[in-house]
């Protein structure tokens, strides 16, 4: 079987899974849904492997194939096929996506067990995976947009999965609308591409682009910037990031799958996929890079002060994606994608751990209320530690190799790109600090009430009445609200398995891409980026190791600082907080991005709406146009009826008047 047919299967299984679960929600048990869901994704993963194998069986430069099912919408010179494009890049993405998804499904199997919307959850989850795979496999821009929008929808559906929570629905609609803005960017980019190149097919576009455009021509720059709108919206980069923290309203597996491991990295994939265009538009590429850098730092700073466990991790996700964006924009393609992979592992893991703890806390997410879970939940805390280390790029963990490779490349490219190296390392420091801030405060310290109960009784705490952690309003446990029982790793084998595997990967996945030793990813992806001049730049092995050394030191330092602040002298943070109150509030309010957008976009729009409704519609449409006419006609009627006064002599008068008038007309009209 050819790689493409495997790829089609990859798409098929999740879709089938989703539909089956959806249709069978009345007749089948929750267990069935879980198994089918997980199984479907696992099958997809297997097919992915198969595709990989078939691909490896071919010569490196022949490793790209297209295949189309049917003419989707092809008339009037537009050619839109239902077609996919298989090459190392897409296969790489398939594997990451389906792989991580499988594990997260496994986790959810346990975690969501007592939720009333179990079928819905798995159906959505499978549908998401299908969409994500469609996104990475799409063979033309239109289908890319389709996948792009589908994941957007899936993310919306899962964010507002507990749809009776107003907070959840609001977060959902926010995420969706911002993503639509991204879609619009893509659509416009597609139009522009079609206008310039007359096609939507990847292969043709990438083939024609170098001939048609010369470097930094405004058209190609415009195309790239429009693509970036899409990429930034999806990957939660400044200034389109505000939806991501709110997205944490969704169930934890969702955060871990969509808002950590897979969907949010779509932007990275997009830039990598269209690197041909970005190479032609260096300006746009730099803009992207700086955008990434800004996000990286801003998010890191915010993560330092977040007290909401999941939101903190979410911000760290933003900042990590910042790294990837930087990577793929400046030309460190394989490095960026490598970081994408490792980040998928450890960030998913972190969320799972967090989810496990939050479950133990009966949905409480505020870390100020947490402490001492180290003793209470051994497994969870161990895995969380692994994730933390990887995130903090602790030497020889996955994050260690991947992050530093990007920075190494930046320094290798030199020039102004050194900025990225330097600030990147600074970001790394912050990362280490906030990561371990979380770990120390949640795992360390003397057990809080819940943790204590866990230690004593062995099963999790139950809030007397379920409530919404965001607003505190009480809830029932029926459909549309979280389930009655909270499951956490210690109590549920499937979750354990998933977290275990990920922990392993978080620690050791780095070794497949050790500078100078084995650069598996790079070699595998080379054929894709062969055409990019930037791909030629390679940091020397020694330089890379030097970079790794610095990175290692920085991360250790960061961990040290965190230890100092949160374990050794627990009261320093407060003092710092009081000393730099202004800074703290500024960071704590997330740099006031939400407020800014609210003032700049939302309120004006509503104001216009209100104006249109209350003023324009009333006065112009009903008043002037409709009413005005009625008025005039009515007036005329009144006049006519006044002269119809019933006095016959008046009628006579008018008759004579008419006669005079007519006579006059007839006499003068000839002369």
């Amino acid at each position, binding site marked *: 079987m050819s790689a493409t047919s495997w790829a089609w299967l990859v798409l098929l299984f999740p879709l089938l899974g989703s539909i089956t679960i959806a249709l069978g929600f009345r007749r089948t048990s929750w267990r069935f849904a879980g198994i089918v869901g997980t199984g479907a994704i696992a099958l997809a993963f297997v097919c992915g492997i198969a595709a990989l194998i078939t691909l490896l069986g071919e010569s490196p430069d022949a490793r790209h194939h297209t295949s189309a099912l049917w003419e989707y919408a092809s008339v009037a010179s537009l050619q839109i096929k239902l077609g996919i494009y298989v090459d190392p890049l897409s296969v790489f993405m398939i594997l990451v996506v389906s792989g991580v998804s499988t594990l997260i499904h496994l986790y959810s199997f346990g975690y969501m067990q007592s939720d009333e919307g179990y079928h819905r959850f798995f159906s959505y989850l499978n549908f998401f995976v299908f969409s994500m795979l469609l996104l990475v496999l799409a063979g033309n821009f239109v289908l890319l947009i389709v996948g792009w929008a589908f994941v957007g929808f899936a993310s919306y559906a899962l964010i507002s999965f507990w749809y009776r929570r107003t907070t959840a629905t609001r977060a959902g609609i926010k995420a969706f609308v911002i993503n639509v803005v991204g879609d619009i960017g893509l659509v416009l980019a597609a139009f522009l591409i079609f206008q310039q190149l007359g096609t939507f097919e990847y292969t043709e576009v990438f083939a024609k682009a170098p001939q048609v455009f010369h470097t930094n021509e405004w058209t190609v720059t415009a195309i790239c910037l429009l693509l970036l709108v899409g990429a930034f919206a999806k990957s939660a980069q400044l200034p389109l990031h505000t939806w991501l923290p709110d997205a944490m309203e969704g169930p934890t597996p969702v955060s871990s799958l969509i808002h950590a491991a897979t969907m949010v990295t779509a932007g990275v994939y997009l830039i990598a996929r269209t690197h041909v265009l970005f190479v032609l538009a260096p300006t746009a590429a730099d803009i992207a890079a700086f955008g990434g850098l800004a996000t990286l730092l801003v998010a890191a700073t915010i993560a330092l002060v977040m007290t909401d466990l999941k939101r903190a991790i979410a911000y760290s996700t933003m900042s990590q994606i910042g790294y990837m964006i930087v990577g793929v924009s400046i030309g460190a393609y394989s490095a960026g994608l490598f970081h994408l992979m490792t980040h998928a592992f450890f960030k998913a893991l972190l969320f799972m751990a967090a989810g496990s703890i939050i479950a133990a806390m009966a949905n409480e997410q505020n870390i100020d209320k947490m402490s001492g879970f180290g003793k209470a939940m051994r497994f969870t805390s161990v895995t969380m530690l692994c994730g933390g280390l990887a995130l903090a790029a602790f030497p020889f963990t996955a994050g260690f190799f991947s992050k530093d490779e990007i920075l190494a490349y930046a320094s290798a490219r030199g020039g102004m790109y050194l900025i990225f190296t330097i600030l990147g390392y600074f970001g790394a420091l912050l990362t280490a600090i906030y990561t371990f801030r979380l770990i120390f405060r949640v795992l360390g310290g003397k057990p809080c009430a819940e943790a204590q109960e866990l230690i004593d009784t062995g099963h999790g705490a139950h809030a007397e009445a379920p409530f919404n952690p965001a607003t505190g309003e009480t809830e029932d446990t029926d459909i549309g609200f979280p389930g009655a029982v909270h499951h956490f790793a210690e109590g549920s084998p499937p979750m354990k398995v998933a977290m275990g595997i990920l922990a392993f990967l978080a620690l050791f996945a780095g070794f497949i891409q050790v500078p100078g030793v084995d650069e598996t990813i790079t070699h595998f992806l080379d054929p894709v980026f062969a055409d990019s001049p930037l791909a030629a730049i390679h940091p020397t092995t020694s330089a890379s190791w030097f970079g790794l050394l610095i990175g290692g030191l920085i991360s250790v330092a960061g961990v040290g600082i965190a230890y100092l602040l949160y374990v050794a002298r627990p009261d320093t943070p407060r003092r710092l907080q009081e000393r730099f109150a202004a800074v703290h509030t500024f960071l704590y309010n997330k740099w006031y991005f939400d407020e800014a957008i609210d003032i700049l976009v939302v309120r004006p729009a509503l104001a216009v709406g209100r104006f249109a409704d209350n003023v324009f519609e009333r006065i112009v449409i009903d008043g002037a146009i409709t009413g005005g006419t009625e008025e005039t006609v*009515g007036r005329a*009627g009144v006049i006519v009826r006044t*002269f119809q006064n019933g006095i016959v002599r008046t*009628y*006579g008068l008018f008759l004579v*008047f*008419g006669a005079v008038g*007519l006579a006059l007309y007839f006499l003068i009209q*000839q002369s």
Partner: protein
Amino acid sequence: MAGAGFNAPHVDYAATAPVIALTVGLVVILISGVSGPTRRWAPGLAVLTLGATAGLLLWHWNDRIDLIAGALRVDDLAIAISLIAIATAFTTILLSIRERAADEAGRGEYYALLIGSVLGMVLLSEAENLVTFFVAIETLSIPLYILCATNLRREGSLESGLKYLIVGSLGSATLLYGMAFIYGGTGSTDFAGIAHGIEAHGMLHDPLILIGIALALVGLAFKTSIAPFHQWTPDVYQGAPTPITSFMAVATKAAAFAVFLRFFVVALGPETGDWQMGLAILAAISIVVGNVGALGQDSLKRLLGYSGVAQAGYMLGGIVVATEKGAGSLVFYLAIYLFMNLAAFAVVVARERETPFGDDIRGVRGLGAERPALAWPLTISMLALAGLPATAGFIGKLYLIEALVEGDYLWLAIFIVGGTMISLAYYLRVVAAMWMRPETEVGGATPAIAGASPEADPVDPDAGRRWYLVAPAVLAAGITVFLGVIPQPLVDFATHAGASLF
């Protein structure tokens, strides 16, 4: 030469037969009216007369005969119009059954006058000579003056009679004066002679003729109730006994328009360039006046009166263009106008006999549920008058507008369209009253004629089931729809009639 044996003119009795039939009928009915027992036959005799006349007229279809030294001309136009008049008269007779006015006036006299008026109309539509024209128009009007007043108990009836008489005579005096000038300018009273005289005496664009045209136009405009000579229309329509109103609304208009057309196209043909625009302006005025006047009228008869003014404006367009198509469209419109109006008036008669509201719009409230057999005809006639498709009204408008646009009078066509839009407001208001929840603003003070005055009390509680009221309504409505779907026959008929002038 004085007293020298004069040679009697050749009289083609075959062609004059219809007129003779009417005259004879008139006399017979009068006689029948004298004695009690025979009085009951009067309506029957009237119908008989009309039938005979119609038959005799149809017999001459496609002829073009000049009668009695060019006093009359029997051609398709004349026949078509006469038939319309006769049909109207026939329906009027049906509607007059059990009408108080008929008894007040005495059956014989009532129907005799009706026939007399019809005689006037037939003469008028055939008139080809100023004298005949004038005599005919008076023969048409004077019986109507009387008939309007025949409901002697109702003040309104008398009032309408007097008003009609005064303004009418004023109109005909003006008409006469205009005729005098035209005669003076051309030295002839025959239409043909006038046309010839205008050119022979080089009177083209001569003030004398023009003033004549102007004054004659006033008279004709009055009879066809064109604004600003329309003001008698609503009052008289409302005051007169409803059957008579229906007769006036349709037959008078038809006959007057016929002679209007003949006079302007045949006699004043040479002057066409002079009067076209003038007529067009009049048409526009009466379209506007009629339509806005009808807004918010609660009395249905009054409403129909105003709408009649507006419709007259539309029809005048057919004369304005002075083309075959124009004439055809005019005849067509007159023909369908007959059906559209009769349907409405039959319903009005029924309702004012069975409800205490008289002809007030409240009389038709909820008619759709109560008396579908009446509601449908009224609805159809309203929709047709508004010119909505699948009714004859649409075809009529189409025909007119086509004629106008072909005759380069597009702006008048647009006036017609504009008028139609306004007209929807009041036509549909009637429809709404029948089928929909009562509008809030209808009702309030009861008009003087309706409810309040004792004589408006229901005289016949189930008039809405009388065959002689329901049948005409349903039939007329049916024909309206039929002609809306299969207009071809009537179109041919009208085109024919129109063509006979040229």
